[in-house]
């Protein structure tokens, strides 16, 4: 029954037609054949030969030949009757089969014509659901035509709603960006303002500003200016489309350099000697962001290993930080989404953008409990040599 439900409408109709055909056509055929058989059997006169033979002895040669011919005809008709009936049965059967086959072809053709607009409409609705542009043919008449027009109207309305949502989404995104940027800029501005106020206050009150205090103020201001500069650089690297210069890079060397730069804060263990195709500058940016992200998350150790699969290499970088909850994993790719107090929300977004720029991909695995907690960033790059690519 479930199989019947899964069948297309036209096949259901055809199946029902076949059942009806077998249920009615077969008995009708048998009825006609048995009637034919009965009629033909009754056409034989069993007394005919006996009557003809009565006059055979007194007949002349010519009459004898004629009588024998008549007897022969009667006998031949009688003997051939079962064969003729069988032939007729066969002929009716073949005719019925041929007729059924042609009726079936006509039925399939008709049903296809009837159901094709529905199928087209179904495909169109599927496409509309996925947001793919589609053309709806509204040439059918009757109820089907009305349905097509309704779907077309709905599609147009949906397009308008999507466009409105897109505009609203963009506005909301820009509002978020503006809000986060304002907040991020305001954070370093406050200590700068405070330092400057203290200096101004002392100057107004004719108080001496010792060189130690001045140094402290300057360092504080410098530090905050550095923060601002870093923020601006991050924003710029995220917003602009970077130039990519792919070349063969030894991962061990690239990783060691970053690990050395960060060695005072994070201990790194590298188990990777493979080569990949990437842009050295962009790769350095990516790795720096990942190390910085781990540091800001509270990690103090990172383990790096590689896995080669056909023409791809997956570089796994795992820290020993607190990890990210499963439900938040997808959102970390969004710009300005951060789970850290000091985070800009751009680090992982930049990692994703730069990796994809180099035809790579990035994925995350996180463990928030147990001894093995931490976040694992898996970067996948091509390992085919440039020469191979060109070939």
């Amino acid at each position, binding site marked *: 029954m479930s199989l019947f439900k899964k069948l297309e409408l036209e096949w259901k109709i055809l199946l029902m037609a076949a059942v009806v055909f077998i249920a009615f056509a077969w008995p009708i055929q048998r009825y006609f054949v048995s009637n034919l058989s009965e009629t033909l059997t009754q056409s034989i006169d069993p007394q005919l030969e006996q009557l003809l033979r009565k006059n055979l002895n007194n007949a002349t040669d010519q009459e004898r030949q004629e009588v024998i011919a008549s007897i*022969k005809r009667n006998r031949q008709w009688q003997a051939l009757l079962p*064969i003729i009936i069988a032939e007729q049965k066969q002929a009716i059967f073949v005719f019925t089969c041929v007729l059924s086959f042609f009726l079936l072809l006509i039925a399939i053709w008709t049903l296809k014509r009837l159901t094709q607009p529905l199928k087209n409409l179904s495909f169109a609705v599927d496409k509309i659901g996925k947001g793919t542009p589609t053309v709806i043919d509204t040439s059918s008449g009757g109820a089907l035509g009305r349905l097509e027009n309704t779907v077309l109207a709905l599609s147009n309305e949906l397009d308008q709603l999507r466009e409105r949502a897109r505009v609203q989404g963009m506005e909301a995104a820009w509002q978020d960006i503006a809000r986060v940027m304002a907040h991020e800029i305001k954070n370093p501005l406050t200590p700068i303002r405070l330092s400057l106020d203290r200096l101004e206050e002392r100057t107004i009150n004719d108080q001496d500003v010792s060189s130690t205090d001045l140094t402290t103020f300057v360092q504080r201001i410098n530090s905050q200016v550095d923060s601002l500069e870093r923020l601006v650089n991050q924003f710029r690297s995220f917003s602009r489309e970077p130039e990519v210069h792919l070349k063969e890079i030894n991962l061990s060397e690239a990783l060691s350099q970053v690990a050395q730069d960060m060695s005072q804060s994070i201990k790194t263990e590298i188990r990777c000697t493979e080569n990949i195709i990437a842009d050295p500058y962009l790769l350095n940016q990516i790795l720096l962001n990942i190390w910085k992200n781990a540091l800001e998350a509270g990690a103090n150790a990172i383990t790096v290993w590689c896995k080669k699969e056909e023409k791809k290499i997956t570089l796994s970088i795992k820290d020993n930080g607190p990890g990210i909850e499963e439900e938040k994993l997808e959102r970390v790719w969004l710009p300005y989404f951060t789970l850290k107090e000091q985070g800009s929300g751009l680090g992982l977004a930049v990692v994703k953008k730069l990796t994809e720029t180099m035809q790579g991909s990035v994925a995350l695995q996180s463990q928030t409990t147990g001894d093995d907690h931490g976040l694992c960033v898996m970067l996948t790059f091509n390992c085919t040599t440039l020469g191979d690519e060109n070939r």
Partner: protein
Amino acid sequence: MFDRLSEGLLGLFIFLSNWFSPANSSEEIRIAAAKEFSLGYSIECAIKLDWNEQMSDLVDAGIPLRLKITSYSDRGDSLYILRTLLCDIGDYTYTFCDSLGTPLTDSVFTSRKFSQIYRAVREYSRWQYHLSKEATQFYMEAELLPSWVSQLDRNLDMSAIVGCRKFSRTFQRKE
């Protein structure tokens, strides 16, 4: 003594031929009897027609039963017979006649009259074949041909009623 020995050898030859020869049809030709002469052998071949009431009715109605018999050996002993079984409706008797495919003076052989169809069919399904002594293998084939139904002006395929169109077999001599 020598005659008996040669007859025994012939018997062994026929037995072995029957045993080893490949059959190319489910309906086979068998060797009913064999005799040795100075120049060769006279072999009586037979087929088993699956006779039934309907066949009797058809023959009784004056429809001829036609059989084409072909035999040839590797020494050129050939035989071609077109055998027709007929019923004489006037006196209720059966005869069969052979049209021999050899340039003989009397190339048509007519059997005696049989009052019973089963006896006529028994004789109808047997024929003689002369084989030279040097022959090591021979092939036989009997094929039922379509019959002409004179009064109804149509052909009738008798093989559909008998259940088989062709009987054939190759015999090989084993030394």
